[in-house]
């Protein structure tokens, strides 16, 4: 196996001057168009929003866009018309990469020029990029992000414990054990979470006058909901383990439960980690639905925080902050799922650890 730097130098060796030039042209176009504009706007100042409007509609910004269009157009034209003549695979690929980047720079810049010249542009900027609005709400932002994570975490915990029980019940040979689990799973999966939240909190907690906060009720209802989906993940994981494993364990004298505990489950758990993490990402996003129940101040999660901030400021920038908050939590998890799935496919998880 060659090291990364060795592969890079081999690849550079295979490039022709023309293909390297087209790649540089395309990359240059996209760098001028996007990072270039961002640096310019940030340097000119992000607050107040009028400063963003004036920098993005300035002649300098327009000239950045025109430069990007010119570079990008040249790269796209040269790349797409000449890539077939390239002598090596690396050269052909870099022609195509340069052409694609150039095309993207052209499309972005043209769209931006058109959009920023419109009447609605300053209003759009005020609505979504009034960062000074965030100032007074920032103190509670981290608390809201933490609440989002806690809601999802405890709900997932409930979901995994109950889900494991329901999964084992659903796998039973006996109809009387299987039926209640199937009924529960299908009932939950067949109804919207919003309806479940309404029935559970408005109907049961408020209706019966129980002393349970929205925060706790939210965790319980989300957990009961996650249990159904988690049960299906566990069931699929257990069923994916070769039947021979159970037979080998049973023929050594283990009871069904021993065979499950010592042989089947440890293997199944490894296989369900990626789908379980996926389920956790979905749960994190679903915590936002609790907003319809109304939170007390300190219990608010990200969307409730953003909605309150919007209500006070009549500005949508807090929603942008919420978007970034959700992404900061979910993107690392999504990457983790991808890495785990790759590891699982390579078969390395099969041995030990």
């Amino acid at each position: 196996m060659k090291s990364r730097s060795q592969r890079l130098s081999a690849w550079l060796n295979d490039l022709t001057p023309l293909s390297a030039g087209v790649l540089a042209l395309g990359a240059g176009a996209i760098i001028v168009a996007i990072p270039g504009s961002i640096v310019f706007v940030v340097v000119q100042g992000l607050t107040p929003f009028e400063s963003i409007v004036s920098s993005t509609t300035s002649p300098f910004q327009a000239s950045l866009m025109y430069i990007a269009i010119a570079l990008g157009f040249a790269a796209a034209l040269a790349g797409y018309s000449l890539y077939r003549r390239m002598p090596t695979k690396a050269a052909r690929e870099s022609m195509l990469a340069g052409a694609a980047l150039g095309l993207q720079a052209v499309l972005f810049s043209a769209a931006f020029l058109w959009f920023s010249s419109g009447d609605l542009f300053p209003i759009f900027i005020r609505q979504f990029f009034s960062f000074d609005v965030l100032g007074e709400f920032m103190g509670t932002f981290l608390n809201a992000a933490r609440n989002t994570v806690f809601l999802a975490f405890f709900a997932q915990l409930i979901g995994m414990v109950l889900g494991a029980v329901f999964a084992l019940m659903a796998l039973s040979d006996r109809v009387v054990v299987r039926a209640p689990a199937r009924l529960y799973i299908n009932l939950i999966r067949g109804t919207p979470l919003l309806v479940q939240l309404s029935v559970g909190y408005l109907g049961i907690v408020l209706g019966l006058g129980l002393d349970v906060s929205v925060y706790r009720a939210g965790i319980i209802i989300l957990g009961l909901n996650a249990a159904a989906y988690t049960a299906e993940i566990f069931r699929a994981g257990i069923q994916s383990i070769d039947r021979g494993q159970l037979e080998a364990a049973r023929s050594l004298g283990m009871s069904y439960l021993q065979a499950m505990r010592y042989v089947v489950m440890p293997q199944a758990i490894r296989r369900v980690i990626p789908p379980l993490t996926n389920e956790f990402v979905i749960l994190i996003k679903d915590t936002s639905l609790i907003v319809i129940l109304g939170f007390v101040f300190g219990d608010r999660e990200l969307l409730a925080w953003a909605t309150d901030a919007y209500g006070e400021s009549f500005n949508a920038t807090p929603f942008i902050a919420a978007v970034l908050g959700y992404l900061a939590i979910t993107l690392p998890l999504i990457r983790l799922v991808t890495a785990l799935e790759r590891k699982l496919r390579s078969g390395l998880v099969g041995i030990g650890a």
Partner: protein
Amino acid sequence: MNEDGSLVRLENIHKAFGDNLVLKGVDFSVKPGQVVVLIGPSGSGKSTLLRTINLLEEPTEGRVLFDGTEITDIRTNVNEVRTHIGIVFQQFNLFPHRNACDNITLALRKVLNVSQGEANKRALQELKHIGLEEKASAYPSQLSGGQQQRVAIARALAMRPKLMLFDEVTSALDPELVKEVLDAMKRLADEGMTMVVVTHEMGFAREVGTRLLVMDDGRIVEDGDPKEIFAAPQHERTRKFLSDVL
């Protein structure tokens, strides 16, 4: 032992999977020390018959007696009975998440309640017996097919069974790995273990088997000394089968 001096006795065994009749009334018994080899065309019911002996398949009809107990009786503790009957499978079925040593000790500790230290000692002893002591900490995926199958044999033997069942244990192996597994089985037979072996290895059947059963279409059609049957098969089906495989 059963009253008639046999270790295992099957009486009138029938087995159906849905509408498909796989066993159509099988009677036979195995005496201690016998090495019974089961052969026959695929689909004749050999594996199913073998698997009814430790009740991995429950017969639809008929009785299985093992060591003086009717194990088809619903009140029998099947888990306890199975600790006395070792089985080795075609696909090895080692536990991939545990190393060779732990594969062997798991049931010793959890089923027979042998202490960890004692179980490890027994596992190493069994691994040594099959010449794999240096692979004690290797995971199944790090072993060749032949080595995996030998560990599977060691895992079954560590329980100190009275009877060993072999279900086409060399069928999934590359040709060059078959011999090491057959050698391990031959050594076991020489040590006096009672064995029932389903196999396509006619050489093994002739050399090691003390008794040959030929199955066809859910019934036993021939039962006798392997060398005699190979030399002069009595039944038309046996002649046909032997001429197809030899």
